[in-house]
């Protein structure tokens, strides 16, 4: 990797909880390039925040190393890493004004008064906070406090910007706005950003690359589009976007393609599908049960042709798309189908057929209960 990036290698963090050791993070490795917007995504308790805090220097790794620009950070305390950090709770200094909150890092760096005033007002401008410079944090709205905490993290031109669920405490509309603002700011400044969130849509929308965490492990890393279209595990398939899982049995395998039977298709009838990517690990043995993943937008609904039959339980108009909930024999729960527009002759309560293209289907091994 480039010499100006960040490398996290084999990072592990063990905590002692009630006398037992628990791996909050186990064996996590990744690299982040200069100027990249990198997001760690996962449900709460998956280890993403702990990983971020180890990069920050706020937690000491049990094993593994964090290297920045070729230098091992193990012996560098948080305050000397020149990293900016935005906390979920904003963590504004309650006894200092907005100006002083932002100026804090510069005062520690013994910046001259004139330069300090210039730098602070520049970053306040950047975040549309100029008129609040003299206000106390408690008198600001959540969104404004959020911006102050970003300004405070950026003012001393850190090498890395860390953001720990920065939008979690904002309302939905502001969240959409702020995430664009953060992404725009990061692009403009060309700063390396590491972002933590549990919101997969947010991660998709703003990141160059996404790392998906589950129970302390990094399980998939890649560009958002790639992670969405090619999940390497059932967990990622389920966590990112919406997915239908159809139980199947594998009866034949040939390279990267497999033949499966579908329980609703009648005895002996097989569907030949491409078992996703040429990833040998994921090819499951003949005779075992699998789950076929199909995204709602990859299913086609018609009253005539299609691989299998169902009946329409509900039709929801969502504005930009129409969502159909279809009951299919042998599938627990509804199969969701999304279409850009309403499909003629498909009515609530009526029969229908579902079709898909083999290339869109991904086969996973069925987890044993």
């Amino acid at each position, binding site marked *: 990797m480039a010499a100006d990036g960040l490398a996290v290698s084999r990072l592990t963090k063990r905590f002692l909880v009630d006398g037992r050791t628990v791996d909050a993070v186990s064996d996590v490795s990744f690299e982040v390039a200069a100027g990249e917007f990198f997001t760690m995504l996962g449900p709460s308790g998956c280890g993403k925040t702990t990983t971020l805090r180890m990069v920050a220097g706020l937690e000491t790794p049990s094993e593994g190393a964090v290297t920045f620009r070729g230098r091992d950070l193990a012996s560098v305390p948080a*305050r000397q*890493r020149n*990293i900016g*950090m935005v*906390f*979920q*709770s904003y963590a504004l200094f309650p006894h200092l004004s907005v100006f002083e909150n932002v100026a804090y*890092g510069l005062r*520690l760096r013994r910046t001259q008064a004139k330069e300090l005033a210039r730098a602070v007002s520049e970053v306040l401008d950047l975040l549309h906070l100029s008129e609040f410079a003299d206000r106390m944090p408690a008198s600001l709205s959540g969104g404004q406090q959020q911006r102050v905490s970003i300004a405070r993290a950026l003012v001393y031109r850190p090498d890395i910007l860390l953001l720990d669920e920065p939008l979690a405490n904002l309302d939905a509309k502001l969240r959409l706005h702020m995430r664009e603002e953060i992404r725009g700011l990061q692009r403009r400044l060309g700063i390396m950003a590491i972002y933590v969130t549990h919101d997969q849509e947010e991660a998709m929308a703003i990141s160059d690359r996404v790392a998906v965490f589950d129970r302390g492990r990094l399980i998939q890393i890649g560009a958002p589009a790639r992670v969405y279209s090619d999940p390497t595990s059932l967990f990622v398939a389920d966590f990112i976007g919406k997915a239908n899982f159809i139980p199947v049995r594998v009866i034949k395998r040939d390279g990267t393609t497999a033949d499966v039977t579908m329980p609703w298709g009648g005895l002996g009838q097989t569907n030949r599908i491409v078992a996703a990517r040429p990833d040998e690990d994921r090819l499951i043995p003949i005779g075992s049960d699998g789950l076929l993943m199909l995204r709602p937008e990859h299913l086609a609904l018609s009253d005539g042709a299609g691989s299998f039959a169902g009946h329409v339980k509900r039709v929801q108009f969502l504005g930009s798309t129409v969502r159909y909930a279809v009951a299919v024999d042998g599938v627990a729960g509804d199969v969701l189908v999304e279409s850009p527009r309403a499909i003629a002759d498909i009515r609530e309560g009526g029969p229908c057929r579902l079709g898909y293209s083999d290339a869109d289907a991904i086969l996973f091994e069925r987890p044993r209960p």
Partner: protein
Amino acid sequence: MTARYELAPIIAGVLAIAAATIFLGYPLAHVVINAVTPHGQDPALGNLTVRNFERFFISASYQRALWNSVVSSGGATLLAAAFAVPMAYTVARVDIAWRPLILALSVVPLIAPPFIGAYAWIMLLGNNGMITQTILSIFGWRLPSIYGAFGVIVALALSYFPYIFLIVQGALAATDPAIEEAASMAGASRARVLRTITIPMIAPAIGAGMMLVFIKALGDFGVPSILGGEYQVLPTLIYYQIHGFFNLNTGSAIAIVNLLLTILALAILSAISRRQVATLSGTARATRLTSPAARLAGNTYIWLVLILSLLPQAMVLLYSFAERWGDTLLPSVYGFDNYRRVFGEALATTWNTVLLSGAATIACLAFGTITAYATVRGKAVARWALDLTIMLPFVLPGLVVGVAYLSAFNDPPIVLTGTAAILVFAYFTRRVAFIFRSAAAAIGQVDNKLEEASSICGATWGATMRRVMVPLIGPALIAGGVLVFATLIGEISATVLLYSAQWKTISIAIYELVNANDLAKASALGTLCNALTLFLVLLASGLLGRNMSEMFR
């Protein structure tokens, strides 16, 4: 339902005003009238005088008592802060063992009546005290006399430092740890974070705790009366004026000065409280210092302060079992002799205490809960009453309550002197605000919608109270009641002016034994008193499911 909401605050308002008038306004008015009436005369328009206050300008002993009160309370406050603040920081920010034990032990000095600890200091540091003799025999040094400013300041500081400790520790625990982390991410060292972020953030909490200690110390009678010797402070001066010279008029004048001083401190306290910075209490845990040096220093400091503050109580316990204690460092014969000797007295006085405190507690519970319900559910209507009553127990030093009740209820129309009622009312006045506060807090936590849901289900108002409200706030009320009862067991500063031979309490019995220098019997009674109090507080904490330390914060 609506009608009841409108009615409730009115009922509460009337009740509160009636009670405040009879138990507070009327007695305090008497204090003022007595203070401006010449000694030995009946109050009348023609003989108004400021003579009773004059002594503060001409009498050296009065000036000294005023000065001593300020100095001993101020000194105790500073010393208490020196004990408490580093201790609070250590508990909150250093990775030390036995945190719950430390928090529980730190409350004990608040639970044990201060005057019981005070005479233990005589056993330790008096002329023939354990420590004095030990140091004399080993080093040949003679320690400064425990009597006077030194002893009073040390004993007060060690009795009241937990207030600062608990408030500051609570404030530190409630601050978002990310705030300090943000400072270190910005480049600040530990020391810098402490100086520029942590201390400014908790400064209002430190200030509030210190003012609380100052107010408590200003009103304390037991400690200076036992350890003061010739060193007079305002409460002891009041006591001697009234007990020694039967001069209620000058007593009243001193009480007013004492009260004004307290009110001044209270005004500062409320100004500080308003500056309290609100911090988001996150679920995140603070990262604690784990270095061996920090742990060693923290543990050493904490246990030193704790041992020092618990030493007097331990001493009382030890002495109570000592049957013979000659020139040796420790008693030579142990046994239950002291307990046997105080048995009769203990039984009678404990019974009195239980009756008086019990009656006062029930009165507090009934009155405090009703007014709290009306205030909380009546929305903003009686908010001022809430504010006033929160401060009430602090405004009035016990001795001032004593003087006020002596003045007011000695002559018709209401004559209560020498009865049990006067003690019950005095206790009620001193503690009702506590119940009001706990009840208001508990009721405030019960969502209004629960009551609405209950009545929509068809419950009458009474049924809603019985089936919904009472089960929800019951534990808090019982715990509050137990706590009030427990703290009344050691009440002395109001009792000492108001009790009569027939209604002698256990605290007075101990006080008399100390004054008669019968420390062995006093220790046995003191241990009983401490044990009873501690047991009740533990009971309350069990009922409430909360730490002892949380209940005193």
